[in-house]
């Protein structure tokens, strides 16, 4: 993509570092990654309620953007934006954003709801994949601890709504959340938002 010498730098195994904050100069990954900041905050550290995306895994970011692009995941705006990028550009932005630190939102939550959400999370077997607090070791399973409650609520309501497109990887959530009441979904969102 760049000249040969820079190619050597990248090939020398500095790829991950070169994708970080931007002080390595204006790489294509940085330039495209910084365009998301107007809605997702500088380096993806959203001040909310749009989701924090900095520090999500490269795999999840890339598959999510690909799903928005091909219309297999509903969004109010992300589908329209996702269609603007090539697969290569999606990989670039995903690398860049995955290299940023996760910054949990400062989210006011109802402590009672969060407590209730914690119970539902355990009782429904969500912890099996998402870990006890919404932090999963698996790269295909996004971090939810410190994610914005409004966003998580909307996302879970889409899982419950059979008319909304969701990616194949999320079908399990559709099955598991469909019997869960709207109030309990709110409680789950409050729990994840408050988790550390």
């Amino acid at each position, binding site marked *: 993509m760049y000249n040969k*010498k820079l190619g050597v730098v990248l090939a020398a195994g500095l790829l991950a570092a070169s994708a*970080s904050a931007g*002080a390595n100069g204006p790489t294509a990954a940085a330039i495209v990654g910084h365009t998301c900041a107007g*809605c997702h905050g500088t380096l993806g550290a959203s001040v909310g309620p749009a989701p924090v995306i900095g520090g999500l895994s490269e795999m999840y970011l890339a598959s999510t953007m690909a799903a928005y692009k091909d219309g297999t995941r509903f969004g109010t*705006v992300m589908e329209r*934006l996702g269609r603007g990028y090539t697969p290569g550009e999606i990989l670039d932005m995903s690398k860049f954003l995955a290299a940023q630190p996760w910054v949990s939102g400062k989210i006011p939550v109802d402590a009672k709801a969060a407590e209730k959400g914690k119970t539902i999370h355990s009782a429904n077997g969500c912890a099996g994949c998402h870990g006890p607090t919404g932090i999963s070791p698996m790269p295909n399973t996004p971090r939810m601890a410190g994610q914005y409650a409004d966003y998580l609520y909307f996302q879970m309501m889409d899982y419950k709504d059979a008319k909304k497109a969701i990616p194949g990887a999320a079908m399990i959530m559709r099955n598991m959340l469909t019997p869960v009441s709207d109030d309990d979904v709110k409680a789950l969102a409050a729990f994840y938002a408050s988790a550390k």
Partner: protein
Amino acid sequence: MSTMNRRDFVKLAGAATAVGTVGFPMVGFGAPKASVVVIGGGYAGAIAAKYTKLYVPDAEVTLIERKKEYISHPFSNEVLGGERDMKSLTFTYAGLEKRGLKVLQDEVLDIDIVSKTVKTKGGKSLKADYLIVAPGIEIKWGAIPGYGQEAAELAPHAWEAGPQTLLLKKQIDAMPDGGLLVIVAPANPFRCPPGPYERAAQIAANLTHAGKKKAKIMILDAKDAFSKQALFTEGWKHNYGDMIQWVGASGGGKVMEIDAKTLTAKTEFDDFKANVLNVIPPHRCGAIAAKVGLTDDSGWCPVNQATFESKKAKGVYVVGDSCIAGAMPKSGYAANTQAKVAAANVAGAILGMKIEKPFLTNTCYSLLAHDYGISVAGVYEVGADGVLADVKGSGGISPVGAPLDTRKRESVYGVSWYNNIVSDMFT
């Protein structure tokens, strides 16, 4: 600029391994101190300064802004609607100073675009290696006969947020039930294409909450079509019945003259006497850019749309409302991503890296009520003709006829946009 020399190569490799824990790495050694001066600290300039510094931490970046505090135009319509106060629109530059760039509160009076020397009202003279010019807009006083600066004290434009916003708000609050509020909307191109129509909705919200249900809002437009028109028409009707009426140019909406004393807007066919008259007059690029020769006949600044370098001067970049950017509207989000492309190109020139491609995005949210939002989004690329156009198949408006849940979500995400974009600018 194209190939990297050995020193740059070593520097880059050094930088790549020196990534700090807070995400703002230090460049190692032997770096030249390039100087960059950014003029104007708004949606474009604040971002240009911040991201130049982020890309090249050891560059000397100076931001010159004439005002001590920035007042955001975006979300000033929500002040008219009674949902926000001016405080929530007001920001200082302390956050940017913490990032190690210099903020000079001063007015730029002149620029030598060849030697890149900037002269300020405070008597300073700054010479830079690169200039990024982002002075926003200037109203063309007198472009509508009768509408000059004094007229704006009676019939406010409120197209630059601040005292004008408060004046219009006061007039709306004092308007009687059954009164007529007229908004005069300009022809393209102008700052914030959906702005006048969002404003109509916000004013309708204010009047409705105040119980003035018989009041009318009339938009007299110099155009025959406007941004997100189908969505606005749907949303006005849903939220406010027929309080808002739009009159396009060929329907007799083009205003030929303003009589501010009697609050009358005169079209070819009719005189509309209003209780409150909001005139959004035609404008052009920020005065300083015009003064120093960065404009063409259109009154705006032509740039290489892949880099935002001025077509009039080397090493001088123009971003935000002042520049000509193909299909991109004059909006805060457009200004944000243009500024980042200019910063990347300045950084690329300093570091000896070639920038292959610009990445440019826009989204304009409009809040028609506190729980009713709509948007238009775009991702852009430079066409073979050098002009920015939508990437095929991308972007567009929120769906017409969407369920209220979608409108509600977009109101939440519209506020989120504002929160995030101002934090991108000022922290």
